[in-house]
């Protein structure tokens, strides 16, 4: 048994660090923060989110605010989706590309008002995205990085909204559709509650002031106890999102991949006008891509992991790479995502995954691997 190497660099902590320790979390370094990877156990937490409700600390994520009459134009020029169509209290998932049409980050953009937008980015990309948005905002609108003052808690699972109803008056939010948000006082803490998530279940993500997060966190665990709430770590966050084929930046998408090959064409709105990467992406769409991100199941004995090469069924040289792979707690199968040459991407296509020198059979399957009823 070999231990995984860990960096000695000083790590930051979220305001929920003490709460995690109290709950028996195993903390690991993650994008510069000391974050809980699991509490009771990955599979146990995964099941809690699928069957009841789980609570995640994702305060490490970045929150950027753009204000001013031109904020909308600035943001819309930087992202592939059309935020011009959002109404107040509505959010959208989007890619943010560079001029080469490859992905700088995937984001959720929230329209708080016609002149106020919130951009939520991956913690690993915060510095990069801050630089891009700050530069674009210069002379056009106000830009503030709110990440260090904003905590983010995700309450996810079929019972999430029942738990939330115990946390404060949310009657005005209860009928809110997905990708909408509103304000609410939870345990007397002013929060923004968005019907979004990264697990494939119903639920919400709660923004609150950094120092007040423990009040919201502890409160939710207390009122959620009769519903079977469990604190849930980054470990199950990854298996939950993978089962729903939600891309993980740094694994499935990065600056070497474009949204079309990543299966994120639906986030590109060419008709909205000019935006960074538009020209290259339009050309890529017209010509077609050479590889695509597909979901697969292992049919042989092996677990695919990030970075394992993929091969044609007859073997030979690698033709692609696994970007995410794991046993799926919900389906019981070993699943994954991989970039494959277009010729191998039809549902039912067989290929091989080179699991540390051993070629193991896999088959392309329909995604998502799991869809809630």
């Amino acid at each position, binding site marked *: *048994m*070999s*231990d*995984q190497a860990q960096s000695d660099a000083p790590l930051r902590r979220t305001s929920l660090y003490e709460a995690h320790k109290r709950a028996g979390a195993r903390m690991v370094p993650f994008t510069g923060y000391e974050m809980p*990877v*699991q509490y009771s*156990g*990955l*599979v146990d937490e995964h099941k809690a989110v699928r069957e009841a409700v789980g609570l995640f600390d994702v305060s490490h994520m970045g929150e950027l605010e753009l204000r001013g009459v031109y904020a909308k134009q600035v943001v819309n020029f930087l992202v592939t989706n059309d935020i011009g169509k959002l109404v107040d209290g509505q959010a959208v998932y989007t890619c943010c590309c560079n001029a080469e049409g490859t992905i700088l980050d995937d984001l959720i953009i929230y329209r708080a008002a016609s002149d106020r937008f919130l951009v939520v980015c991956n913690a690993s990309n915060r510095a990069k995205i801050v630089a891009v948005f700050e530069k674009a905002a210069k002379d056009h609108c106000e830009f503030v990085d709110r990440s260090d003052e904003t905590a983010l808690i995700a309450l996810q699972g079929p019972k999430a909204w029942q738990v939330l109803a115990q946390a404060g008056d949310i009657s005005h939010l209860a009928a809110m559709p997905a990708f909408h948000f509103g304000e609410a006082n939870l345990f007397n803490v002013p929060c923004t509650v968005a019907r979004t998530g990264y697990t494939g279940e119903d639920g919400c993500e709660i923004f609150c002031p950094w120092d007040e997060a423990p009040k919201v966190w502890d409160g939710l665990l207390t009122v959620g106890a009769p519903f079977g709430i469990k604190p849930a770590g980054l*470990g199950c966050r*990854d*298996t939950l999102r993978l089962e729903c084929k939600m891309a993980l930046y740094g694994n499935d998408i990065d600056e070497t991949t474009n949204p079309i090959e990543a299966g994120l064409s639906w986030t590109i709105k060419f008709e909205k006008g000019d935006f960074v990467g538009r020209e290259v992406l339009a050309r890529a769409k017209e010509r077609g891509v050479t590889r695509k991100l597909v979901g697969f199941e292992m049919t042989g*004995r*092996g*677990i695919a*992991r990030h970075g394992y090469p993929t091969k044609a069924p007859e073997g030979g040289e690698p033709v692609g790479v696994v970007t995410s792979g*794991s*046993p799926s*707690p919900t389906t019981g199968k*070993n699943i994954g995502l991989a970039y494959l040459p277009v010729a191998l991407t039809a549902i039912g296509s067989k290929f091989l995954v080179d699991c*540390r020198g051993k070629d193991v059979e896999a088959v392309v399957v329909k995604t998502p691997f799991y869809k809630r009823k």
Partner: protein
Amino acid sequence: MSNVNVPDDLRYTKDHEWAKLDGNKVRVGITSFAVEQLGDITLVDLPKVGTKLEAGKAFGTVESVKTLSDLYAPMSGTVVEVNEALANAPELVNEGAFDKGWMIVLEVADSTGFDGLLDAASYRKHLDESAH
């Protein structure tokens, strides 16, 4: 770490394998501590009977939902038994790291290497030290 189960009748490696000597045979598995670190074990890949192992060299892998770890041979020898049940029920390792989750039995030519392994007290100390 004092609450982790470390049976006194076994010997250990710093990589968290345990070994149990019985004549010229050594039963090998991974410790409760290792299992706790790995979480839910989903795949155990072991060598075939007859494979010759060298002390300190990787002989197989154990995978949990999140990670993969190599297994290291505590002693040199020949694999004479493999826990075939683990192929279809890797969770046996979670259920009993020191008993039904055993992995292989080695036949060793020279059992003196066994005394070079950590005893329970030294292994406990090793766990305490690596926790800080």
